[in-house]
């Protein structure tokens, strides 16, 4: 018996969310009184996982896996799960994690709970709390199969250090053939992505035009944040669609979401409900966003934001 976590890496390095799934997996393994095994693929810093409780790291190194192929990865997870007799398999809720998890569940004939936000509240029956209704509620999902697959919602559990003297083992799974081919990958250049960002600065129609986005970008730069926008802004072509946050755009689960000139339509709020702290800056005191926010400033963005940038720069200089 074991708990198996797939810790994803990009160019060999783990993301913060990988440490979160390992931290979560470690605690589930403790609950089940079993060991945590972490599967990595072409990662270069496997020993860093010991710090988060990875007792055993199964390392796969294979040039053929340089690009992500969902069928191949799901099959490798299956092989690792069978080898390690995994009872619970935990994956990330990033784009790749959510892609591969349902395939793993079918491969192992396992019940699958996505968007888990807490440790299992009960082991027998096995019940895990997950997000539902576009973050307007949770459901406690009982997984009745012997093997269980969970994807952990980003920023819902946290990263916890629990140093162990782990071991690494090379693993050479069979690589299945598939005719699904990756032709190209386009990465947004250099900027912090909405998915990775701890802080997101978002602008709405209140900014009046794309020419006014400089201050949003400057505020994001001071905070090391990603930039985002509301749906009307992307529909108007002021900002790229990849920045549209909301129900049909990107979901945000950052620690801090700053909404500037966004009134807070229900579809927008559905996309940002998972953010921990929300700040709204809007001229309209009746804007629905004030009901959803933790902190608010009723004021003109063109006056408030430059002052905020200036004071944040001072704060950063004093707290460097």
């Amino acid at each position, binding site marked *: 018996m074991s708990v198996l976590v797939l810790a994803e890496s990009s160019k060999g390095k783990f993301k913060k969310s990988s440490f979160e799934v390992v931290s979560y997996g470690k605690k589930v393994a403790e609950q089940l009184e079993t060991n945590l095994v972490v599967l990595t693929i072409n990662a270069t810093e496997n020993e860093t996982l010991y710090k988060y409780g990875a007792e055993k790291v199964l390392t796969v190194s294979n040039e053929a896996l340089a690009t992500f192929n969902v069928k191949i990865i799901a099959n490798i997870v299956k092989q690792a799960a069978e080898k390690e007799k995994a009872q619970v398999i935990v994956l990330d809720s990033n784009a790749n994690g959510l892609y591969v998890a349902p395939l793993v569940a079918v491969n192992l004939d396992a019940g699958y709970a996505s968007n888990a936000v807490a440790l299992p509240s009960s082991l027998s029956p096995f019940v895990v709390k997950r997000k539902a209704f576009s973050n307007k509620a*949770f459901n406690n999902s009982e997984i009745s199969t012997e093997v269980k697959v969970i994807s952990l919602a980003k920023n819902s559990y946290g990263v916890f250090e629990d140093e162990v003297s782990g071991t690494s083992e090379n693993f050479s799974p069979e690589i299945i053939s598939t005719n699904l081919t*990756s*032709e190209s*990958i386009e990465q947004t250049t250099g900027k912090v*992505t909405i998915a990775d960002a701890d802080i997101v600065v978002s602008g709405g129609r209140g900014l009046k035009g794309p020419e006014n986005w400089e201050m949003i970008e400057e505020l994001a730069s001071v905070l090391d944040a990603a930039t985002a926008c509301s749906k009307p802004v992307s529909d108007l072509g002021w900002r790229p*669609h990849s920045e549209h946050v909301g129900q049909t755009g990107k979901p945000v689960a950052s620690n801090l979401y700053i909404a500037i000139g966004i009134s807070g339509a229900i579809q927008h709020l559905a996309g940002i409900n998972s953010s921990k702290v929300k700040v709204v800056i809007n001229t309209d005191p009746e804007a629905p966003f004030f009901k959803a926010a933790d902190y608010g400033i009723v004021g003109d963005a063109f006056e408030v934001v430059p002052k*905020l940038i200036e004071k944040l720069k001072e704060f950063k200089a004093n707290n460097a």
Partner: protein
Amino acid sequence: MKILVCISHVPDTTSKINFTENNTKFDSNGVQYVINPYDEFALTRAMWFKEKQGANITVISVGDASVEPTLRKALAIGADNAIRVNALATDGFVVAKELAEVIKNNTYDLILAGKESIDYNGGMVPGMVATLLDYNFVNACVNLEIEEDKATASREIDGGKEVLSCNLPLVIAGQKGLVEEKDLRIPNMRGIMMARKKPLTIVESTTNETTTATTSFEKPAPKSACKLIDADNVEELINLLHNEAKII
């Protein structure tokens, strides 16, 4: 080309979410049901293929008779026929098995669905259907082109997108980008009249082995009121974010 579009029947985005029977059942009282918004992108892309390249579109939903108005709406938008699998969609894996069974008994070149439903947000059904049938699958799909039996699809990745190619048959879990929101279709009166005459076939359920079940629902704890900060005192916001929220 034969296209199957999987449709979820979900509460409208603006619905108040409440539960009954000691928080074990969703309260559908006064709730307006709609085509799942992500499935609308899939249906509209199917319509695009029908109009540009020629295709026959079947829409399918797993549910009791209450899902039929949603299927009729899809027919009014332009689908050619509809299938309802007579089973309750309580478990995504079961829904995937029901759909896979229908697909096995028919031949579809392309299976389109939304990347998740806005009620249970499982995001699992399309990938499971593809795996059960050993079809290719592209998740979070933001573009799709078909030329004869070859598909080129783009999927959203964290911080960018990836272009993939494969042969048909293919399962796509789509989202905005597959078509733009401004291109989504609204049924017109002629479509609504024609939809009444289009075939809606009821297929009986083939599986009842569930893998997951909801034991109870919870709503988030009530939020404390928004702390308002004077527009002339942005330092106070920085102070609160640093000392109270401990974010910066």
